[in-house]
């Protein structure tokens, strides 16, 4: 097979994987030129590859938890997210935002511009500034290419056919896609999380919000503690919120005076018509219940004692301070 035939097979293979019509025009020779080592080849993935991989990751994450069926909420989160993302050096990525129907408290950044926030996290937020801080953190991961970099390293190291992969871009992209949404289960290193926190603060400030929304959310997470079920994965894949707060304090203290105070608009509520998110594995236990619509204006349940779970909405205990 001639090298140009191999090129087109590879290019078409990639186009099929990514669904991007423009993919065939990518100059594979530039990326995988003779004499390049594996690491160089891997880091040569361009923005289209990043978007293609991210779309697959986002699609699989949605396969695990679908979007909350509240169109107005989803549009709202997209407007806020796009506004925050517009403050970055990658404003024209295909930015997508969504609230996914899971009681977990977490958020995910898929390479190339997709941010998914769980309903569990969304519902502990009290202001649009807090939402902007959370989205800004995830946008920071995307702008600085944190996940795609980890996926590349992992694909290069783990692939059996490393040489073939280096010569055939579709194999490499396929390998990255094979990692799927698992990347979110493995997490990033601490420095990437601290970096994303700092970016989240700055992007919120640039967008005109109070820069401190993310700090308020971290306080809320810290107050819930690591034994909180819905926070299990977040605590496993991120440094402890207190550690993140300390890092932020160190970075912010010298510049706090220079940060604009910004605004704290109210946040849109999930439609009252939506049933509470279904737990992935509901285990009925004494005291396990979700407050329904008619109880929505009632006070939080007071701990009944004796249970191992939270009797009150522990994410809401700081609302008096960090609420509207």
């Amino acid at each position: 097979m001639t090298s140009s035939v191999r090129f087109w097979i590879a290019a078409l293979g990639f186009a099929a994987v990514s669904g991007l019509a423009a993919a065939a025009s990518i100059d594979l020779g530039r990326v995988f030129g003779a004499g390049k080592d594996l690491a160089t080849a891997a880091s040569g993935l361009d923005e289209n590859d990043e978007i293609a991989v991210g779309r697959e990751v986002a699609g699989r994450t949605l396969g695990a938890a679908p979007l909350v069926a509240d169109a107005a909420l989803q549009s709202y989160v997209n407007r806020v997210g796009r506004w925050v993302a517009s403050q970055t050096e990658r404003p024209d990525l295909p930015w997508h935002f969504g609230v996914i129907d899971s009681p977990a408290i977490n958020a995910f950044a898929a390479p190339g511009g997709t941010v998914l926030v769980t309903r569990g996290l969304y519902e502990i937020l009290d202001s649009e500034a807090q939402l902007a801080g959370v989205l800004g953190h995830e946008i920071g991961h995307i702008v600085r290419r944190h996940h795609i970099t980890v996926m590349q390293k992992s694909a290069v190291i783990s692939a059996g056919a490393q040489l073939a992969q280096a010569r055939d871009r579709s194999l490499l992209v396929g390998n990255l896609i094979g990692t799927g949404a698992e990347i979110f289960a493995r997490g990033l290193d601490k420095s990437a999380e601290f970096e994303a926190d700092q970016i989240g603060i700055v992007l919120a400030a640039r967008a005109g919000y109070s820069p401190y929304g993310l700090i308020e959310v971290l306080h809320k997470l810290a107050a819930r503690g690591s034994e909180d079920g819905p926070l299990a994965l977040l605590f496993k894949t991120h440094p402890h919120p207190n550690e993140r707060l300390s890092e932020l304090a160190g970075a912010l203290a010298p510049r706090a005076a220079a940060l604009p105070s910004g605004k704290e608009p109210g946040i849109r509520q999930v439609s009252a018509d939506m049933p509470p998110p279904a737990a992935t594995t509901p285990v009925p236990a004494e005291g396990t219940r979700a407050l329904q619509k008619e109880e929505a204006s009632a006070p939080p349940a007071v701990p009944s004692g004796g249970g191992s779970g939270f009797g009150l909405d522990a994410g809401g205990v700081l609302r008096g301070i960090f609420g509207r």
Partner: protein
Amino acid sequence: MTANARFLVSLLARAALAAALSAAPAAAQQVTLERDSPLYAEPRLDAAQTAQLKQGAAGEVVGKQGGWLNLKTPGATGWLFSFNVRFPVQKAGSGEPGSAALGQVFGPRRTVNVTSQIGIRGLEEEDLRRASLDAGQLKLLDDYVATKPAAEEHARAAGLAPAKVEYLDAKP
């Protein structure tokens, strides 16, 4: 009790509760100082300092403004940045002092979905590893995308003014 009477009772109970909750920020939240920090007379770094607190000192949060918390300690009252304090972990149904009171003091938002956490787990490793792509959901995700002008319009309506702020890791 008739349905109407029950409704009235529940309405009255809620009204009483709402009044209680809307009364001045009642009992305050206890915090401890994570690091030495001055208290300022106002939430500004150029305001007069009212005290110098040591790491581990305790106080009550009696107010909030942006990133600032208004703290009341046995010896002084003043403002400090929220990243200088730590809130206590809310122990699950422990009846720990303050925990129940907090639930009363820091009332819920207008609508809540308070879910007891016993036995509930969220999206976990295995769910993410096993998940397969949902094309229909990806299409929905596309449908909800906001254009740049729509985002800008949202910002204008919310009164958000863009500001020039350097990344914190930017070289000065």
